[in-house]
């Protein structure tokens, strides 16, 4: 009997979309786990399985190598490692899933963070034979840093250790000690064998001592993040839309006259007709007169919705500005305390200005101070680093050329996040969260 058939019917309701990533140290079996999850949940189609069999045969492997499914680049298959995130999609009767399979090599940490930034759950793999690695801790730290509320420690290759239960308990205790300091909403450990399929979708018959959910059962029931509704209104203005002189959509009803509105996606909170909003950084006040969508006007709209707002007064408002609830304004100013993760091979040059992209605003900024570097192995703070190298995480003070309206990342994932771009190369060299 498959694990899915064991689920009580009540749990089979539609839980919408869940985004998760697999992470952890190199060779801990991330790509194999995803292959197993897809295979056993019938998320693979016949030609994908045939292709997988053929690719495995060409490599002289006796059985199919599930990791070949997500390692989609030539260089990855050549070297047997994952370089960049592969996104995979599958659905069970209970839920749709977007998986980010992220690389384990320290060199490609930036790609792991790319996948983590949009995930609801992190599945952190650890090899039962080797226990926690520096990269396991780094990924746990980064998962928390980008605000993933839930982490599953998947203790993989459990079939390869003699005392499976003892090894599992040891790693579990070790991880709990480390993760407690990070403040996840939920930490869950599951022993499994991605290769054999035990406790992934099926329970298998060797881990009878484990009573908790399989990985898929957990993923089908874990709450997706929906915390933005409760926060005060934040509406980054993405685009000013002006319709006049013949640029109306045919059939839109706006072919005659003029139209001016502000397009964007509500980052948090709700907006109602008539609400008073404040435009930042200018600080001017206005009321919402229309919430427009292509399906017609709305009385109110909530977080994640892409809408066009119109206001009762002509105020100076352009891309990069923020409309915020009058009674709960964010900090707005030029000095920003943040935690940044440096991605680029070229280290930070603290004397140089960089570009910050925050919401829809891009401004110049410089590093006014490097306060601490965080040693992610011990979680200790190293005072006053001289610079930041690839994968360094540090608390810094930034000075922006123009005021930015920001919230702490812990209360708002849109207005609390930014990336740093090197103007000379246009590369995204770092990302930051507002403290």
């Amino acid at each position: 009997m498959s694990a899915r058939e064991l689920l009580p019917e009540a749990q089979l309701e539609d839980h919408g979309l869940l985004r998760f990533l697999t992470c952890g140290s190199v060779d801990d079996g991330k790509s194999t786990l995803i292959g197993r999850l897809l295979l056993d949940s019938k998320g693979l189609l016949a030609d994908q399985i045939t292709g997988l069999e053929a690719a495995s045969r060409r490599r002289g492997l006796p059985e199919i190598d599930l990791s070949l499914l997500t390692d989609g680049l030539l260089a990855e298959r050549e070297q047997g490692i994952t370089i960049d995130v592969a996104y995979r999609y599958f659905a069970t009767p209970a839920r749709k899933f977007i998986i980010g399979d992220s690389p384990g090599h320290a060199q490609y940490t930036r790609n792991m963070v790319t996948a983590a930034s949009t995930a609801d759950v992190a599945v952190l793999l650890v090899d039962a034979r080797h226990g926690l690695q520096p990269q396991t801790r780094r990924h746990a730290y980064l998962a928390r840093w980008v605000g993933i509320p839930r982490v599953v420690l998947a203790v993989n290759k459990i079939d390869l250790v003699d005392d499976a239960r003892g090894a599992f308990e040891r790693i579990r205790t070790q991880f709990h000690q480390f993760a407690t300091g990070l403040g996840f909403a939920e930490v869950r450990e599951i022993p499994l064998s991605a290769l054999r399929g035990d406790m992934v979708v099926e329970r298998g018959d060797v881990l009878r001592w484990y009573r908790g959910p399989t990985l898929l059962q957990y993923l089908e029931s874990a709450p997706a993040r929906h915390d933005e509704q409760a926060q005060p209104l934040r509406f980054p203005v993405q685009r000013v839309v002006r319709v006049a002189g013949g640029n109306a959509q045919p059939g839109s009803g706006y072919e005659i006259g003029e139209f001016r509105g502000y397009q964007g996606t509500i980052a948090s909170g709700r907006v109602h007709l008539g609400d008073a909003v404040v435009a930042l950084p200018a600080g001017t006040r206005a009321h919402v007169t229309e919430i427009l969508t292509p399906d017609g006007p709305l009385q109110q709209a909530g977080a994640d919705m892409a809408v066009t707002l119109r206001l009762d007064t002509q105020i100076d408002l352009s891309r990069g500005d923020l409309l915020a609830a009058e009674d709960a304004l964010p900090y707005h100013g030029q000095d920003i305390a943040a935690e940044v993760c440096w991605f680029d091979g070229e280290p930070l040059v603290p004397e140089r200005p960089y570009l910050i992209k925050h919401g829809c605003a891009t401004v110049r900024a410089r590093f006014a101070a490097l306060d601490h570097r965080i040693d992610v192995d011990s979680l200790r703070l190293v005072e006053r680093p001289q610079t930041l190298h690839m994968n360094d995480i540090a608390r810094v003070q930034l000075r922006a050329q123009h005021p930015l309206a920001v919230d702490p990342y812990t209360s708002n994932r849109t207005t609390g996040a930014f990336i740093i771009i090197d103007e000379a190369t246009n590369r995204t060299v770092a990302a930051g969260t507002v403290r």
Partner: protein
Amino acid sequence: MLSTIEPQSTVRTQPQGWSHLDALEAESIFILREVAAECTNVALLFSGGKDSAVVLRLAERAFYPERVPFTLLHIDTEHNFPEVIEFRDRMAHERGLRLVVRSVGDSIRNGRVRLRKADESRNPHQSVTLLDAIAEFGFDACIGGARRDEEKARAKERVFSFRDEFGQWDPKNQRPELWSLYNGRVRPGENIRVFPISNWTELDVWQYIRREGIELPSIYFAHRRAVVRRGSALVPVTELTPPHADESVEELSVRFRTVGDITCTAPVESAADAIEKIIAETAAATLTERGATRLDDQTSEASMEQRKKEGYF
């Protein structure tokens, strides 16, 4: 595949009254608005296929009530189904959008593309014509309807994917892409490829087509067509793809899951003549979209990656 078909009703059961299609649509609209705001001269690759029809609808919804601020660009292999070309032209005309067509045939005739043999597929050669069109019009961003679920090299690609001055994709060195903070900065001669429906699956696309009532070329729906069986694929009998001497022509009820170049696009046997039936078939499909219908991706494990590195979409 164990995907479920969504109920038709508009009653939404999510915590926010929010279905997965709403979430995907909002993400795509954000991406499209971001391209319009950050780039100055944007092309939307429009072939008349279902994915590009979905992207066009998303763009209309993103910019409403303003007209879509993009140029439609089609890289034409001259080997297209007439129904698709008629649809392409009509869509552009009805929306008052500028449509630019650049032809692989012209690239062959003026020597920019050299075929190894006259009857080889022109599909991979679209890269040359595309890069020439980008240079001719100075596009700094090109929007495509590619999806990550289509193919494993695509599964690796960013939403905003950087191309250097040679149009090349460097998959080992992509820009980190966190949250929805897309980095669309390029220097002259470079460009960004933007994939607003990266996170959609084939089933999502069909469900959205149903929800929005999006019009499609008729060959997406089941119709009678003369075909021959070649390997595991059905090959439509056309002037460009005549039957081999030893093949027997059959007339079957078929539909196309993708509508690319005639020489490399195969229909599937199907009686699905309405969108409901297509959705039911898609949910129960045992072959991927490309596996079932593309004759060009199966040459090697990395043929898509290779083509993408050379500038292909």
